[in-house]
């Protein structure tokens, strides 16, 4: 089951430059929430604050409160522990090239001490099925390396890898921007199915994609959250003029 996310007064900095200004929002459990906005508006920065990947950049800093379920992200939980419960899929598929498909999916589990072959087999298969990849690779799980798949397949592999450790939240940072339309379609279908079990936050620069897969949408502009509401409302009847300008294509 997924959990909800609450963000209060989040400010993020790269050294002296401020990238996010006083973000407040609530992500509903078991729903898909899309974050849209022009390039450089801070949506990727925001999502990386949710699983503390933002800190991996030198001189990066965060102020504010984030709660995922009952966990306080910035107060008390170790980043490592947090990231196990919040999965991430990146813009460019990044399977481990020296590992087989099986080992890629099992990587997170092995780190957490799961060694029993039977257990791993079960979880790997279930994860690959959840990401709609199993049928395509079931005969070459151990033979093919993670990097030998096509772009779309690699991304689904990365999704399976993230799902294998049973996160409660799945963060997706423009997961389809490096993929062709057919693979994009397959992954969007996937998101539709996954949101029944996970809470999904997806960053996308493709507004139609947001409209297709998410129930809620947040519009970011220049580091501020301009509007956050049901997707339908944001696209058909936005409250803020800037949102309207963006979704109607007047800029960005």
């Amino acid at each position, binding site marked *: 089951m997924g959990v909800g996310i609450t963000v209060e007064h989040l400010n993020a900095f790269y050294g002296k430059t401020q990238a996010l200004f006083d973000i407040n929002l609530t992500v509903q459990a078991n729903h898909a929430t899309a974050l849209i906005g022009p390039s450089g508006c801070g949506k990727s920065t925001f999502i990386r604050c949710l*699983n503390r*990947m933002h800190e*991996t950049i*030198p001189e990066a800093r965060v102020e504010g409160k984030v709660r995922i379920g009952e966990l306080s992200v910035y107060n008390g939980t170790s980043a*490592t*522990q*947090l*990231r*196990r*419960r919040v*999965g*991430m899929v*990146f813009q*460019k598929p*990044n*399977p*481990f*090239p*020296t*590992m087989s498909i099986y080992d890629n999916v099992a*990587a*997170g589990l092995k*780190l*957490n001490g799961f060694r029993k072959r039977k257990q791993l087999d079960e979880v790997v298969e279930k994860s690959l099925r959840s990401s709609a990849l199993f049928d395509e690779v079931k005969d070459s799980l151990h033979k093919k390396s993670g990097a030998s798949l096509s772009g779309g397949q690699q991304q689904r592999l*990365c999704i399976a*890898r*993230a799902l294998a*450790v049973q996160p409660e939240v799945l963060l997706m940072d423009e997961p389809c921007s490096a993929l062709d339309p057919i693979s994009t379609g397959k992954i969007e279908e996937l998101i539709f199915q996954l949101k029944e079990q996970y809470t999904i936050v997806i960053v996308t620069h493709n507004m139609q994609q947001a409209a297709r897969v998410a129930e809620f949408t947040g519009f970011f502009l220049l580091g501020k959250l301009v509007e956050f509401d049901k997707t339908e409302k944001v696209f058909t009847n936005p409250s803020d003029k800037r949102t309207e300008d963006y979704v109607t294509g007047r800029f960005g």
Partner: protein
Amino acid sequence: MRLCGFGVVVLLALIVYELLIGSQLSWHAFGWKFFAQSDWNPVEDQYGALPFVFGTLVSSLIALIIAVPLAVGVAVFITEMCPIWLRGMLSFTTELLAAIPSVIYGLWAIFVLIPILRTYVEPFLAKTLGWTGLFSGPPYGYSLLAAGIILAIMIVPIISSITREVMTVVPQHQREAALALGATRWEMIRLGVLRNARAGIVGAVILGLGRALGETMAVTMVIGNRPEISKSLFDFGYSMASVLANEFSEATGDLYLSALIEIGLALFLVTIVVNALARLMVWSVTRGQPARTIA
């Protein structure tokens, strides 16, 4: 310009030619047995190079065993763990190690390392690991062990510098993939960096081996220079490069000289093969991106 390019090839050809011609006499006299016999007797014109091969291999092996963990550790620290302000200083100082001439390493080894070995290290090793048979006999200090240790100090910079290069080439998204799965920093380094750079690190190690095999001065000054094969690392030894350094300019007689040149030829061939192998492996990871020139 084409002349210069051609000239480089000519140079190599000249080297091969000189070595082949010079070793002819010895080759005809002893054939393959040259490298299997241990009797090195200039007085009676009997030459067997096995002790030198043994000495070179053993000292290089000791050097690798000591140097590889150290070099990889330094590389990991500088690339993944070090605060940014420290990085430049550390990499400069490790490169400084590479700039010290071999003879100065030897000088320091004679007056500092060997006494330390003689007084503290070798007795300690004899007491704790003496049962293995590797650490027996009087601790003179001058020994195969000393040669291995000074070699280790000398090859750490090159192994470390290439390891750093291949680690830096690993794309950032691999590190992020590991972190996002909930890996600790060491696990991230293990999964996302070292695994990807494996081939290159092996290449770096082999390159270090190549350097160790041909190293002359520092080894000559501490190895003891006695052509013997022995089990204990405390004993004197003799390496291929050392016998050339010590005996070449005083070699009387054509066969003596030829035998030495044959050792030189063997050293040449071995280092070529080792270096070619190493560069192949490093290239496979960095994929032709221009490497920094290593001093």
